[in-house]
């Protein structure tokens, strides 16, 4: 047994926990031959005794009586402490701050999601299109669609692009262009139209 392993078993021996027989024998043999590990064991035992006496010393009955008196007093008053049960207590400040930040994000997200157009100018129905980035996203694939300089006809451009999508090829790790199937095209056109209607008109 080498010293590093011996030190692990020494810690367990100090605590009086069971050591497998073979390891116990090997530890004894090591201790008989290694002065450094014997010293670690001796110091460890002294420290454990000192800590045990300090932390575990003294009678507990006075404290137990005080606690029970407190319990009886609270019971007599119907537990007037209005604090919530432990599991429902007010969380610590860092958790509260995180919760506030999350709530603020949710509010902003909800406003944007439910139709607050933060980009477009209501007097010019193309302004929003010119200023916006159109992102097509499907599963983990994300592409940006760049509108033509005059911003029109956007739907046509986007719909045409929809007819080609990037798809994984046989060769994993690379991507190839693959036309839409009819059914896919119809589905995508419907979704895109809804998206365009909802966002810009």
């Amino acid at each position, binding site marked *: 047994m080498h010293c590093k392993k011996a030190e692990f078993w020494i810690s367990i021996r100090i605590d009086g926990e069971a050591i497998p027989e073979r390891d116990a024998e090997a530890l004894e043999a090591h201790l008989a031959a290694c002065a450094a590990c014997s010293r670690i064991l001796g110091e460890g035992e002294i420290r454990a005794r*000192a800590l045990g006496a300090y932390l575990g010393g003294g009678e507990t009955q006075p404290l137990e009586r005080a606690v029970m008196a407190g319990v009886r007093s609270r019971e007599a008053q119907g537990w007037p402490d209005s604090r919530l049960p432990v599991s429902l207590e007010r969380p610590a400040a860092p958790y509260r701050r995180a919760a506030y930040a999350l709530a603020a994000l949710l509010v902003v997200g909800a406003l944007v999601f439910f139709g607050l157009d933060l980009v477009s100018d209501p007097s010019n129905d193309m302004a929003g299109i010119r200023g916006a980035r159109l992102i097509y996203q499907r599963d983990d694939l994300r592409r940006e669609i760049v509108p033509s300089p005059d911003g029109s006809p956007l739907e046509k451009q986007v719909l045409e692009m929809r007819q080609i999508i990037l798809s994984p090829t046989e060769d994993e790790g690379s991507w190839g262009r693959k036309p839409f199937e009819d059914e896919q095209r119809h589905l995508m056109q419907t979704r895109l139209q809804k998206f365009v209607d909802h966002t810009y008109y």
Partner: protein
Amino acid sequence: MTPRTNHPPRSGSSIVADEGAVEKLVSENMGWLRGYVRGRIGDPEAIHDVLQETFLKAIRALPGLVDASTFPAWLYRIAENTIRDHVRRKVRNRGKLVFTDALDELRSPRDGEAAAESRELAEKLLAAIRDLPERYREPLLLRHSRDLPYAEIGRILGITEKTVQVRIFRARKMLQKRLRPAGDG
């Protein structure tokens, strides 16, 4: 000494209606919990307050405890939260946290020289233990609070017995390094 009862699982609500059972819970768990709280905070008055507050919170919420055999683990979490609240209050009120370790009940005039040395060593060790990372500090303090067995410490902390072994071993290694006199090794 173990806080774990050998009774079949009982709900907290059935215990709270039985004063004898509540008293038994307090008595079974006071020893190790007092040792743990002593290890975490040095001020003897605060130790008393934290223990009182912890038990009162636990007993008040006892009806919500489904299996009373998990009481030690539950009590430990309440104690840890109460200690943290206490430390926060202390820091806020005084601006600086001071551990006095002035345990009057352990400082009787009959103390011999050996006992005084042992106490001095314990205080030095505790100062170093309080600086250990929480995951190493907790099992070590629980171990020396009434010699809780590894299995019980594991149940209280929600970790395996093997993890308790390893964390206590690492905690002791860290202490060895921190307590080593300058220039030694």
